[in-house]
């Protein structure tokens, strides 16, 4: 139990420390991630002994919160904390030269804690909580340099797009809870969920894992610091979508899985093409992330979660290495544009070799880790139904991957080296430590992938045909990419690929503008409603004023008339010479006249009186209306 809490609370405590104490922030964050790593290693060891640790505590009535270290979640937690710790080491170097350290470190620690919570969540409500907190942390991280318009726009875009897709998660979780009567994440549920529920969950996956058409927030998110990208794109954030699919996989019907496979396949192809036509190394990597996650979604759609897990783990190491390498190039040249990066690889050979190993792995070259996981996915495609679609999509995607990686190598290596200055980067040791350790994992990880997946309770599918075809397209793709380095893609059609298929204007047109237009319309309606209400109020006030004036005059008239009448009587009575009667009547007149004065006071135009009258009038009108309609 302590191991479980350590895994989650370690980074959260670090985040709190950083916000409140503000000292040794980088090291505090590193300590937090090491605590998380220790916790997950302990969990792994317990698991090897056959212990599954669960913790249940009070959540919502009838739906307790639950943490459960299942085989799968322990393996994932281990991967998450390993990758993150290495990125943290790198980031100590990277952030030394950047602004916004405090926000960065507290945000990224929160992020890690939330990610571990997501991985280890044993009930759906806790899962949703972790999911959303990850979104919040990514908002903070992307906006680390909040004074830049680009950064704050990107963080808003990421959060809102995810929020839209998250509606799917809410609906999906409602369906799960109401179908099963429990919020527990069951490994072997008694019954599946409806098609609508499955599609809702798929929507959430598409948002978080940047699947088409939600892929554009991911490239915009490049506005954040590079370690953030490395983290977001590897074991966390985007991986959350895949973890959702893995946890919900047992609930999906075969019909629903076809949709999953379709989304994955389409994303592989479209975003793979985007990566090929990118003119910016980070944007290329971002598009590549969508595409690689598409592979995982595809594998789950094909019914082989094992392949997805293998690729999730492999991709976590490969993509974080690539980003870390790209970050070093960026610090060197001050840019992420291919145009400025030409030849940077020759200058920073160590970085370049790390980058190259990770890139070759991503392309699927043996014996690197990516070869094994891609092979698993191709096999899943071969065995799926319809194999034609799944396998073709996966194979084409593998070719695309090799092309864009080959192209990146070509540009980094072949360009002209800017001769003059020697590298100025002081913090390279930290950065290289992080990068090279990750690359080692990429190089040697292939050996451990099989046993690790078996510990998680799955078996990686393998087939010779898949292996051979994968190798062929990888080699072909790398060659094509190496020679296709020219930035000759100025034609509109390629721009269209490159800019994430801004059909109908993209996110701005499809989500933001309709929202703002509707808001404007509602607001103008609201304004006229306010005017109308005040109009009614003023009208009633005017009526009340008028009525009171009329009543005032009428009473005055009547009273005067009564007075005169009485006077006349009195005059008449004077003929009778009866003094007693005369006095009595005079007294009566007097009192009536005084009454008249009193009455006039009621109608005297005091604002409050009129208000009261208007209120009563309004209520009366309301009641009449109500009664006539009921």
């Amino acid at each position, binding site marked *: 139990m302590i191991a479980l809490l350590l895994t989650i609370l370690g980074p959260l405590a670090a985040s709190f420390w950083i916000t409140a104490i503000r000292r040794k922030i980088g090291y505090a964050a590193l300590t937090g991630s090491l605590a998380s790593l220790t916790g997950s290693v302990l969990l792994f060891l317990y698991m090897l002994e056959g212990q599954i640790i669960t913790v249940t505590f009070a959540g*919502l009535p009838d739906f307790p919160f639950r943490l459960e270290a299942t085989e799968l979640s322990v393996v994932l937690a281990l991967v998450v904390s390993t990758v993150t710790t290495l990125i943290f080491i790198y980031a100590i170097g990277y952030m030394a030269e950047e602004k916004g350290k405090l926000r960065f470190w507290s945000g990224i620690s929160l992020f890690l804690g939330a990610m571990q919570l997501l991985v280890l969540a044993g009930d759906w409500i806790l899962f949703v*909580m972790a999911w959303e907190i990850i979104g919040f942390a990514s908002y903070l991280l992307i906006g680390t340099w909040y004074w830049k318009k680009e950064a704050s726009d990107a963080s808003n875009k990421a959060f809102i797009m995810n929020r839209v897709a998250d*509606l799917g998660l809410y609906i999906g979780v*409602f369906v799960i809870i*109401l179908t099963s009567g429990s919020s527990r994440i069951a490994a072997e549920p008694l019954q599946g969920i409806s098609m609508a529920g499955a599609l809702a969950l798929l929507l959430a996956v598409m948002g978080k894992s940047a699947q088409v058409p939600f892929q554009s927030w991911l490239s915009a998110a490049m506005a954040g610091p590079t370690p953030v990208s490395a983290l977001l794109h590897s074991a966390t954030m985007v991986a959350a979508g895949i973890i959702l699919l893995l946890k919900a996989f047992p609930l999906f019907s075969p019909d629903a899985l076809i949709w999953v496979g379709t989304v994955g396949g389409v994303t592989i192809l479209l975003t793979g093409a985007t990566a090929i036509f990118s003119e910016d190394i980070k944007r290329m990597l971002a598009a590549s992330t969508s595409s690689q996650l598409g592979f995982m979604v595809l594998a789950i759609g094909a019914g082989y979660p094992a392949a997805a897990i293998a690729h999730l783990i492999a991709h976590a190491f490969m993509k974080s290495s690539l980003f870390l390498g790209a970050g070093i190039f960026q610090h060197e040249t001050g840019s992420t544009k291919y145009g400025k990066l030409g030849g940077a690889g020759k200058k920073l050979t160590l970085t370049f070799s790390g980058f190259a190993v990770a890139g070759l792995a991503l392309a699927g070259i043996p014996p690197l880790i990516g070869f094994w996981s891609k092979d698993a996915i191709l096999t899943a495609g071969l065995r799926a139904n319809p194999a034609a679609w799944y396998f073709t999509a996966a194979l084409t995607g593998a070719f695309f991957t090799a092309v864009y990686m080959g192209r990146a190598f070509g540009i980094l290596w072949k360009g002209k080296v800017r001769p003059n200055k020697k590298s100025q980067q002081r913090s390279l040791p930290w950065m290289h430590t992080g990068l090279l350790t990750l690359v080692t994992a990429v190089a040697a990880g292939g050996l451990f992938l099989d046993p690790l997946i078996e510990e998680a309770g799955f078996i990686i599918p393998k087939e010779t045909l898949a292996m051979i075809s994968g190798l062929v397209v990888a080699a072909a793709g790398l060659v094509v990419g190496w020679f296709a380095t020219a930035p000759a893609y100025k034609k509109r059609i390629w721009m269209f690929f490159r800019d994430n298929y801004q059909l109908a204007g993209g996110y701005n047109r499809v989500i933001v503008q309709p929202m703002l237009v509707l808001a404007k319309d*509602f607001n103008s309606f609201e304004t006229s409603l*306010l005017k109308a*209400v005040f109009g009614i109020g003023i009208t009633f006030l005017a009526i009340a004023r008028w009525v009171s004036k009329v009543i005032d005059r009428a009473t005055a008239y009547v009273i005067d008339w009564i007075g005169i009448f009485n006077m006349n009587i009195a005059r008449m009575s004077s003929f009778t010479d009866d003094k007693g009667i005369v006095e009595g009547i005079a007294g009566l007149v007097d009192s009536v006249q005084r009454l008249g004065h009193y009455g006039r006071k009621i109608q005297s135009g005091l604002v409050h009186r009129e208000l009261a009258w208007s209120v009563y009038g309004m209520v009366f009108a309301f009641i009449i209306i109500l009664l006539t309609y009921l």
Partner: protein
Amino acid sequence: MDFSSIPLLTITTFLPIVGALVVMVLRPKKTETAYGIGIAITALTLLFTILIWVRGFGPGLSQIEEFSWIPSIGIAYRLGIDGISFPLVLLTALLFLSALIFSAKIKENANIFIQLVLMLETACLGVFLSLDLFLFYVFFEITLVGMYFVIAKWGHEHRKKAALTFFIYTLVGSLFLLLAFLALYLFSDPNTFDMRQLIANPTLTGLAATLTFWGLFIAFAIKTPLFPFHTWLPLAHTEAPAAGSAILAGVLLKLGTYGFIRFPLLMTPDAFREFAPYVIIIAVFTALYGAFVALAQTDIKRMVAYTSVNHMGYLVFGVAIAAVTTTSSGMIALDGAVLQMISHGVVTGVLFLLIGALQDRTQTRDMAEMNGLLKAYPILGWLFIVAAFASLGLPGLAHFPAEFQIFLGGFDVYPVAVGIIIIGLPLTAALYLRAIQKVFLGTLPEGFSGVSDLNQRELWAIVPLIAVTVIIGVYPNSLLSLIHATTNFFGL
């Protein structure tokens, strides 16, 4: 005297007004002394509410305190508490304390201001604790008077207009409430104003029940408010002083929502069930309408005011779901609705206080005129960001458990309605992110020279509320266990 026989509820209710009398008699020359008394009294009141909690109460109405008042027509002084009213009492005590601490900068007529606020607190506590229609009505009306003067005297530029609108509007509501109460009284057998009797055996049927239901509905829909009765809200919230807005949004709106649960849901349940679909349509529309209109605002305070409309839409939706179904889904939704009252009270209260602090510094509420303030006021800015994310429903903060339960319960009965109403979630996200981006992110204007970040007084008012937001978000069961016991007891 043993602990269980102390009339804690009465003491809690009338402690603030006693404090007001003390201020009235002493007429402290220094405003510090006056605020000292006021803050001490509100803190003591909070302590007494916690004592009520410590003493414990059952799922049903308990800790009853009853004295004969006008026996000939069955009016009595009756107070009591359960899991629905207690969280509100706690919220009231907490928010008034914060509001008074925050207001300590008001120097003009401070004595009268403190007296009014304390009177208002007694009235609010009285509303939540009353178990007698007549007593409830009296307290309900007194809240109006207190708030009217707070807005009219200490508000911003259009305060007179705002106060008057608020007053007239809610007075109209009160008249409907009076009629409905009379109906409840006249149709009960034997005639009584005792709310426990009226809840235990709701006797109204047919047209009388229908009319009573709609009377109650209009009264509370104005107070809550629901579309189209919400038009008093933006003006009153925007023009009131910061502490006034916090109390108005935090506590006074809850008089309406509390009323929805205590009266129509428990006293005219059949009529409510019959008309619940209409209420649901109104609630869904209110929620989206509030969100959209808020999105279009340029005045940050007005924007937050409209998000209240949105949140109240969710809340009434939850209550209506509870009216429709007697399954556990209804209970889930009602649990969520009750918790939503507290969450909204705390979160919106703190947002208004923060905006008050912001306005004190920038002298404007127009978002277009502010930029990059996170650099100038980091503490203010970060607290605002946390509160804003709480308001948009981020898990780990107060609104999430409430809204999640409302939607979960509702989804069982009206999945389509939930499908529509949750569009409000990305909308509120968008509007808060937009506000944060405009006001706090970006770069500070050249040559910006502002006063310093939040001071001690402001921190003492704001930080406890933020802490409560986090506690409710992380450990919702702290309140939900109380709430759930009561909703379970009423078999809702």
